[in-house]
């Protein structure tokens, strides 16, 4: 086990800038691209498909790489790996996700860019009925090593049909795994783990995280799927985040510290499988919990974490479980309305203080 793998395995320990390995500060976007490149180099069965992942062709049919994928996730890959491995698709989410499942069932490891998270719904039957269920309903004869990624979340003016966060819907489905990286370090480890996993894995990239910067080790590593981590240790209240809201929680905890409140921040990293221990251990210590999720509230991951805490840590609670989510509405377009939708630091700080009656 490398140093990095050891860090990932002991995920209750804080991870990130400062640990003693060679690396550099870089963006989430660059790290994502580099991880795809590493995995393409590592395993010849890995290939990528999606709309405009190179983007554009000249009159001879040669790829132009005019887009390099939505948000430039795959920029530059087609030059090095060619059109068979960087396979641009027509706009046919159900068709190409289904084809990817068929390819995965027959001996390859496709990575599928679904562009915006909302477009999962266009391909949903292939995800629910074929990707998720084949291994079980065929009695374990097959595996389905497919990785899907898409951009989730609000805050960028993409409005109602390009801003969804419904990873809870996918987490609901047995057979699928769902990861929610929160920075450059975790997206590298989780994406690599997803591509090497034999089950279908959805990687949710929040649009507001894509240009964030963070420390990334030089050597390749994986972060365990199904393991959360602590972003900050504390004793007064547990604050749980996922994807973008992990950053919100971390910032809120720093504000609370200035007011003398010592918050512990849990970053879920995976929503399925869900690491129950990481937040149950925390709430056993702090006796209070705030869960922060940008998804709409009903049947959300926030609801799920609250249910697990009520079920398994009720006796440790000194205050009601508090959920902070978006409202039960589509994502609005107007900047002020959109900002009001997304949980922010002030909401987290106020909720934590209310639980502590200060």
């Amino acid at each position: 086990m490398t140093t990095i793998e050891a860090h990932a395995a002991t995920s209750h320990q804080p991870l990130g800038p400062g640990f003693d390995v060679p690396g550099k500060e870089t963006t989430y976007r660059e790290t994502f691209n580099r991880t795809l490149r590493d995995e393409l180099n590592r395993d010849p069965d890995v290939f990528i498909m999606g709309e405009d992942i190179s983007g554009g062709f000249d009159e001879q049919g040669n790829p132009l790489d005019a887009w390099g994928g939505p948000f430039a996730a795959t920029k530059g890959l087609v030059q090095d790996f060619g059109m068979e491995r960087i396979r641009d698709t027509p706009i046919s989410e159900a068709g190409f996700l289904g084809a990817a499942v068929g390819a995965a069932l027959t001996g390859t490891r496709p990575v599928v860019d679904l562009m915006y998270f909302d477009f999962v719904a266009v391909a949903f039957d292939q995800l629910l009925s074929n990707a998720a269920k084949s291994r079980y309903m065929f009695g374990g004869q097959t595996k389905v090593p497919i990785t899907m990624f898409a951009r989730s979340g609000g805050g960028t003016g993409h409005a109602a049909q390009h801003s969804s966060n419904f990873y809870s819907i996918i987490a609901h489905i047995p057979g699928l795994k769902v990861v929610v990286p929160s920075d450059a370090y975790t997206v590298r480890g989780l994406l690599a783990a997803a591509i090497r996993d034999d089950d279908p894995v959805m990687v949710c990239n929040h649009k507001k995280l894509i240009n964030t910067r963070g420390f990334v080790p030089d050597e390749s590593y994986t972060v365990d799927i199904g393991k959360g981590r602590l972003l900050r240790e504390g004793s007064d209240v547990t604050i749980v985040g996922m994807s973008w809201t992990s950053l919100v929680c971390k910032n809120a905890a720093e504000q609370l510290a200035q007011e003398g409140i010592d918050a512990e921040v849990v970053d879920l990293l995976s929503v399925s499988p869900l690491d129950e221990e990481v937040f149950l251990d925390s709430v056993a210590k702090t006796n209070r919990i705030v869960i922060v999720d940008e998804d709409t509230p009903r049947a959300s991951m926030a609801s799920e974490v609250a249910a697990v805490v009520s079920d398994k840590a009720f006796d440790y609670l000194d205050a009601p479980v508090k959920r902070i989510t978006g409202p039960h509405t589509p994502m609005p377009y107007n900047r002020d309305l959109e900002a009001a939708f997304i949980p922010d630091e002030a909401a987290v700080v106020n909720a934590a203080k209310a639980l502590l009656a200060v």
Partner: protein
Amino acid sequence: MDIPHGKLTWLYTTMYRIRIFEETMLEQTFKGKSMGVTHSSEGQEAGPTGVCAHLTDNDWISSTHRGHGHCIAKGLDAKRMMAEIFGKATGQCKGKGGSMHIADFSKGMLGANAIVGAGVPLAVGAALTAKYKGSDSVGVAFFGDGANGQGVLHESMNLASVWKLPVVFACENNHYAEATPVSYAVAVGDIVDRAQSYSMPGFAVDGMDVFQVYEAAGEAIARARRGEGPSLLELKTYRYRGHFHADEPHKYRTQAEEASWRARDAIRSFEKKVTEQDLMSREELARIRNDIDQEMLDAVEFAENSPMPDLDELYSDVYVSYSNPVHGLR
């Protein structure tokens, strides 16, 4: 006719095996031995047989809810199929799939699929694997007339055509999607005409004539193996039974219509042709039938005597999405 004798024997054996499997399966279903719904493909035997005659275990097929015929034509074992329908541990999927999810990956059978049209892109994906890995394997997607209303079929045909994949789209037009006639639900008179919309050749075939199916499928599959891309086969056929075991088809189809299709029965027609042309003898055909009649009795006995799956199988073949109770917390 230039079909080798061994292949003729295979065609007859396979069609008859499908027929008797379906009859036996239905009989056992009515006895309460199946744990769920079953869909008989009786009457449609020539389609899967004539197509799969050109395939090996290295080729892949996707299937439908009416998949027993595809399974048998692809070489699956009747014993393990019957045991799967009986829900037994010895079933093809350990009793966890049932009639609508029988699969055998060692035989290139990607599974019966209970969502209409949903299996089609899987065969396209298998063809993508073949192209990606540079093998000469092909994918065949079996689907019915009902799938013609599904978007994913059209997406799959377009993808296969633009990527020039080695795949054959085999539409078994049995003229009814559940109770709805094809004339009501499909906007074209001949489904095969849709091939030109996707720039691929279309073959319109009498799906009750295994020789016609064999010839057209041979051309389509050879074309795919040569790297010339996909084709569409329309096999016009008829299911003798209802949509599922308890369906009464005479509520929506006439007896006369059914009789006209039965008069063109694929197995009877085959027997007539090969005996008239002295390609196979009546004794030879009878011997094959006797062997298969016995094989189905054995399959039922095997399924009947097989154990139920362990209850632990509920949790196997999938990661369990929650941890065990955390020590000290309850």
